C-alpha cells in the first residue's frame, strides 16, 4: 500500500475512531430525552453502531503486523500552553482491547434487557458513557487524554453499581470509587512528573505516550525510574487488582448488576494491565527490572491465595470474582517475565480473560435472574432445568481453566512458559529475573483453579437438583415470564454464541492474534534486556554502594 493512500485514508480513519467514541455519547444524550421504553433499544443500536465504526477501522488498519501506531497522532492541541493534544490512534494491542470492549458492550446492553426494570434511561445512559470513556482510554495516545478516559470510567461504574446493584451496593460502589480514585492519583502524579521532566530537560512540552516513554526510559536516572515505576505500578495495581489492594473487587463484583460485572471483568480491569503494559514498562525499564521480582511475588501470592479463597466459596458470583483475581495474577506474571513470550501471552490473556470471565458472569447472572439466589448451598444441579445453560457453563468453565483447544490455554501456557524461561541466562536475548520457581508456584494456582472451577460445575450445574423454596414467589416482581425457570431464551443464546465462537477461534487458531501482538510487545520490551542485565549485575554491587555512601558523608 502506498504512502499516498495512507495520508488520504488517515483522516477517515481518525474520524472512524472518534465516531466509535462519540456515538455512545450521542446515544446517551438521546436516551436522556427519549422515553424510558426506547432506552434499551437505543442503547443496543448505539453500541452496535460504535462496534461497526471500530470494525470498519480495524478492517482498514494497516499496522497489524508492524506494531506501528495508526493513524499518526494529530497535533490538534487541546491545551496549547503545555501542548496537551487530543491525539488518538491504535496499535494492534490497543486495537484488540478496544475491539474486545466494543464487542462486549452490545452483549452487556442486550444482556440487561430483562434484568434492569427500574430507571432504565439512566442505566443505559451511564452504560453508554462508560463505553465511551473506556474506548477513549484505549484509543488515547496522549497520556492526559488517557487519564481523562481512565478516570471518568469510575463515575458511570459508581452509578451502575450503587443504583442497580445488590443489597450492599452502596458500600461496594464507595469502596470501588475510593480505592481506584486514590490509585489513579498516583498515576496522575507520575505522568505529570514525567511531563515536567521532559519540559525541564528538552524545553518542549509533550504528552505523547511514545515521546514520553522514550524520553523517560533514556533520560531519567535509574533511581528516578525506580520510583516512577513504583508509583505507576501502585496506581495500576489497584485497578488490576494485585494482591494487597484487591479487596474492593470481590465486593464490587458480587454487588454489581450482571452487565456491570461483565464489563468490569471484561475490560475495566484491563485498563490497569494495559496501563502497566503501555506506560509503566516502557517509561521506566530500570524501575521495571528492579521491581519485577517484587511485583511477581505479589502476583504469585494472588494466584495461589485467591485460588484458595475460591475453593471455599459458596457464592457462585464471588467464586468467579476471586478467580478473576487469581487469573490476573498469572496475566501480570507473564508481563513481568519481561520477555516477548510472556508478554505476548499476557496480552492474549487480557483478551481471553475478558471473554471467558465475562461469559461466566453473564451465565451466573442468567441463573440469578431466574432464581434470585447465588449461594450454591441453596441452588444446584441446574443442568436438569436448563440444559442449554449448562452446556455454555461447562464450555466457558473449560475456556477459563485453560483446556487445550479453547482460548484460555494459549495465553496461560505462554505466560507460564515465559515465566519459566525468564532466567538470568542471556542466550535467549531476553534475560529475566523470575525462572522456574515462579512458574511452578503459579502452576499450582492453575491446578487449584481447575479444581475449584470443576467444583463449581459439579455443584452448581450437575449433581442433584436443589432449588430455593421461595424462588417461585418472584420477590423481584417479575410477574408473567420471570417466574418460569425454563432454559435460556433465544436472546440469551444469541449473546453467548458469539462469545463461544470467538473463544473457540482463538483457541484453535491463535496465530493471527499472536502475530499482531508480537511486534508491539517486542517494541515495548526493547529496552529490557539491557536493563535486566544491569539489574542482575548491580545486585551484588548494590550492597557495596550502600556501604560506600555513608563513608562519603563522613568525609564531607
Amino acid at each position, binding site marked *: 500500500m502506498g504512502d499516498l493512500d495512507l495520508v488520504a485514508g488517515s483522516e477517515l480513519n481518525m474520524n472512524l475512531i472518534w465516531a466509535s467514541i462519540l456515538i455512545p455519547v450521542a446515544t446517551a444524550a438521546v436516551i436522556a430525552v427519549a422515553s424510558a421504553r426506547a432506552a434499551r433499544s437505543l442503547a443496543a443500536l448505539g453500541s452496535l453502531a460504535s462496534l461497526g465504526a471500530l470494525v470498519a477501522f480495524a478492517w482498514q488498519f494497516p499496522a497489524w503486523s508492524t506494531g506501528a501506531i495508526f493513524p499518526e497522532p494529530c497535533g490538534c492541541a*487541546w491545551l496549547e500552553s503545555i501542548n496537551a493534544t487530543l491525539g488518538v490512534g491504535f496499535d494492534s494491542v490497543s486495537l484488540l482491547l478496544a475491539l474486545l470492549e466494543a464487542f462486549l458492550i452490545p452483549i452487556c446492553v442486550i444482556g440487561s434487557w430483562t434484568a434492569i426494570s427500574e430507571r432504565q434511561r439512566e442505566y443505559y445512559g451511564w452504560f453508554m458513557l462508560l463505553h465511551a470513556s473506556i474506548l477513549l482510554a484505549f484509543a488515547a495516545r496522549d497520556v492526559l487524554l488517557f487519564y*481523562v478516559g481512565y478516570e*471518568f470510567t*469510575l463515575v458511570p461504574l459508581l452509578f451502575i453499581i*450503587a*443504583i442497580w446493584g445488590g443489597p450492599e451496593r452502596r458500600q461496594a460502589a464507595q469502596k470501588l470509587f*475510593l480505592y481506584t480514585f486514590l490509585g489513579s*492519583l498516583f498515576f496522575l502524579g507520575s505522568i505529570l512528573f514525567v511531563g515536567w521532566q521532559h519540559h*525541564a530537560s528538552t524545553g518542549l512540552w509533550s504528552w505523547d505516550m511514545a515521546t514520553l516513554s522514550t524520553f523517560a526510559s533514556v533520560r531519567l536516572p535509574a533511581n528516578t525510574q525506580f520510583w516512577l515505576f513504583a508509583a505507576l505500578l501502585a496506581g495500576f495495581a489497584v485497578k488490576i487488582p494485585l494482591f494487597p489492594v484487591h479487596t474492593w473487587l470481590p465486593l464490587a463484583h458480587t454487588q454489581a448488576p450482571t452487565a456491570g460485572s461483565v464489563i468490569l471483568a471484561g475490560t475495566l480491569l484491563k485498563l490497569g494491565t494495559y496501563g502497566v503494559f503501555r506506560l509503566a514498562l516502557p517509561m521506566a525499564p530500570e524501575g521495571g527490572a528492579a521491581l519485577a521480582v517484587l511485583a511477581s511475588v505479589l502476583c504469585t501470592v494472588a494466584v495461589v491465595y485467591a485460588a484458595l479463597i475460591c475453593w471455599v466459596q459458596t457464592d457462585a458470583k464471588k467464586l468467579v470474582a476471586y478467580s478473576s483475581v487469581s487469573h490476573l495474577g498469572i496475566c501480570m506474571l507473564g508481563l513481568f517475565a519481561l520477555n516477548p513470550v510472556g508478554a505476548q501471552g499476557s496480552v492474549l490473556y487480557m483478551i481471553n480473560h475478558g471473554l471467558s470471565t465475562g461469559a461466566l458472569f453473564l451465565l451466573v447472572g442468567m441463573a440469578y435472574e431466574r432464581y434470585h439466589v447465588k449461594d450454591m448451598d441453596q441452588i444446584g444441579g441446574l443442568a436438569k432445568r436448563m440444559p442449554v445453560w449448562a452446556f455454555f457453563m461447562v464450555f466457558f468453565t473449560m475456556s477459563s481453566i485453560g483446556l487445550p483447544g479453547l482460548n484460555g490455554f494459549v495465553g496461560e501456557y505462554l505466560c507460564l512458559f515465559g515465566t519459566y524461561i525468564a532466567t538470568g541466562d542471556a542466550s535467549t536475548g531476553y534475560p529475566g529475573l523470575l525462572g522456574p520457581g515462579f512458574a511452578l508456584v503459579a502452576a499450582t494456582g492453575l491446578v487449584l483453579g481447575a479444581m475449584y472451577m470443576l467444583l463449581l460445575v459439579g455443584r452448581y450445574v450437575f449433581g442433584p437438583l436443589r432449588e430455593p423454596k421461595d424462588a417461585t414467589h418472584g420477590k423481584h416482581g417479575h410477574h408473567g415470564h420471570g417466574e418460569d425457570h425454563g432454559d435460556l431464551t433465544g436472546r440469551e443464546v444469541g449473546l453467548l454464541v458469539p462469545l463461544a465462537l470467538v473463544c473457540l477461534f482463538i483457541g484453535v487458531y491463535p496465530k493471527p492474534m499472536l502475530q499482531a501482538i508480537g511486534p508491539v510487545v517486542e517494541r515495548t520490551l526493547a529496552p529490557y534486556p539491557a536493563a535486566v542485565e544491569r539489574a542482575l549485575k548491580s545486585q551484588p554491587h548494590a550492597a557495596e554502594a550502600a556501604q560506600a555512601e555513608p563513608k562519603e558523608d563522613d568525609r564531607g
Partner: protein
Amino acid sequence: MVDMSQTAVLLAPEIVLFAASMLVAVLGLSRSTGTRSLVPWVCVAALVASILALDAVWTPERIQGANLLFPMLGKYGKALIALIGIGLVAVSAGSIDRRYEEAVARGRASFDALRVVRGEYYAFLLLSLTGAMLVMSAPDLIWLFLGLELVSLPTYIMVAVARTGRRSMEAAMKYFFLGALATAVTLYGFAMLYGATGTMQLISMRDLLAEQAAGPGLSATALLGTILTVLGLCFKLAAVPMHFYAPDVYEGAPLPVTAFLSFTPKIAGFSALVTVLGTVGWSGHAMVDHDGIRIAYQGLPQPITAVLWMVAVLTMLLGNIGGILQTSLKRTLAYSSIANSGYMLVGVIIGPQGGIGAMYLFMLAYGVMTVATFAVLATLERKGEEVDSFESLSGLRSSHPVLAFLLTVSALSLLGVPPLFGALAKIVLVFVAFEGGQASLAAVLLLNTAIGAVYYLRFVGAAVVNPPNAKSQDVVAVPHWWPKAAAVVAGVGIIVLPAFLSRLVDASATTVDGYIDLGEAVVSDADDRPSTSTTD
C-alpha cells in the same frame, strides 16, 4: 506621583458598583413591590456594567501611572469577581427575604420599612464586592487595608441580616469578633512592614526590600511583618490557623450568605496575600549555608515559605478530614471551602512562575462550582426551611432530576473527576507545584483530593443513588427562577469550560503580567531604575 484623576478613571468598575449599591439601598425601601423586585436586576446590571467599564479603562497606558505592584491583576481579577458576583446575586435572589416579601404581596403583612431587608442586603453585597475589587488595585498598604475592611464589614451584617434566629446571631457575633482579631493581626503585620521599610507604597517597599535582600538579607522586622500579615489574612481565606470560625459561621448564616462567604472574602484575601508577598518577592533571596556561603535560590524567603507550607498542608488536611466528619451540608461545604483554600495556597507558594496564574484559574473554577452547588441548595427548601442534611437530599433525582444532575456535576467537579473544570484546574495546580520544585506539595494535594472524595461522594450518593425517604419527601423547589438559572448556567459552565481551558489558562496567567519580582528589581536597579518606583 500618583495621578489622582487617572486613578479615578481606573476605579470606574468600583465606582459603578458603589453607585449601584446606593441606588439599591433606596430602591429596596420602596413601598411598591414591583420596584423592590427590580433590586436584583439592578445588581446584575451594575456588575455587567462594571465588567464593561473594566474592559474600557484597564489599558496598559492608564495603569502606567497607577503605581501598582501587579498592574494586570485587576483586569482578570475584577472581571472574575463581577462574574461570580452575578451568580451570587442570583443565589440570593428569591430566598433571602422571600417569606416577608410574599406575605406583603399577599397582603398578609403590611409593608414596614424597618423590617424589609432587601435594600440593605444587596447594597452590602455590592459594597463587599467593591471592596474585593479595591484590594486588587491597591498601590499602598493603607488602601489595601481599607479594601479588606470594606470586604469584611458588610459581610458581618449580611450574616445577621436574615434574622433566621439565634444561630444566625451567634454566627454573626462569632464572625465579627474573630474577624476583628484577625484584622488586628494583619494590621500589626502592616505596621511592622512599615517599620522595616519606612514606606507604605508597595512598589517602594519592594525596592527597599530588594536592596535589603541583595545586601544583608531581609530584616527580622520585615520577615515577621510578612508572616503576621499572612496569618491575619488566613481568616479571609478560611485557612489554618484562622479557620475555626468557618464551620459555625457557614452553618449559622443563611445559605446565600454562606455562598457569598465562601467566595468573596477568599478572593480578596488571596489577592491581598499575593500583593503583600509580591513586595518580598519569589526570587533573589539568599540562604547562608553552614560554611557561611550565600546561595541564591528561587522562591519566597525560607521562613515565609515554611509558614505558608505548613499553613497549606494543614489547611488541606484539616479541611478534608473535617469534611468527612460532618453531617450538615453547610458544615461540609465549609470544610470543603477550607480545603480548597489549601489547594490555592500551593499556587501562592510557587509564585509568579505559573503558580499565581494557576491559583486564579482554580479560583474561577472554585467560584463556578460554589455558585452551582449553592444555587442548587438555595433552590430547595423543606417546610419553609433551608435543607441542611444529606437525608433531605435523598432521592432528589426522582423529584428534581435536573437539580440532582447539576448537584452531581458540581460535586464530581469539586471531587476532581476529569474532564470537569474543577479537576482540570486542580491538575494545573499540581502541575505548577511540580514545576516550581514543590513535589511534596503536589503529593499532598493529590492525597487530599483522594481524602476529599469521601465527602463529595455523599452529595452524589444522596442526590442520585439513594431512594427518597420520609425527610426528603417534603423537599420542594422554591418558586423563583433566579437560583435555578444560576445553577443551570454554572453547571453547564463546569462541563463546557474545559473546552476553553487553553484560553482560560492564558487569561489567568496575565494576572502577573508587568510584575517585577525582587530579584529582577535588583538587576534592573543596577542598570536603570524604573521611573515608576521613585515616588517621593
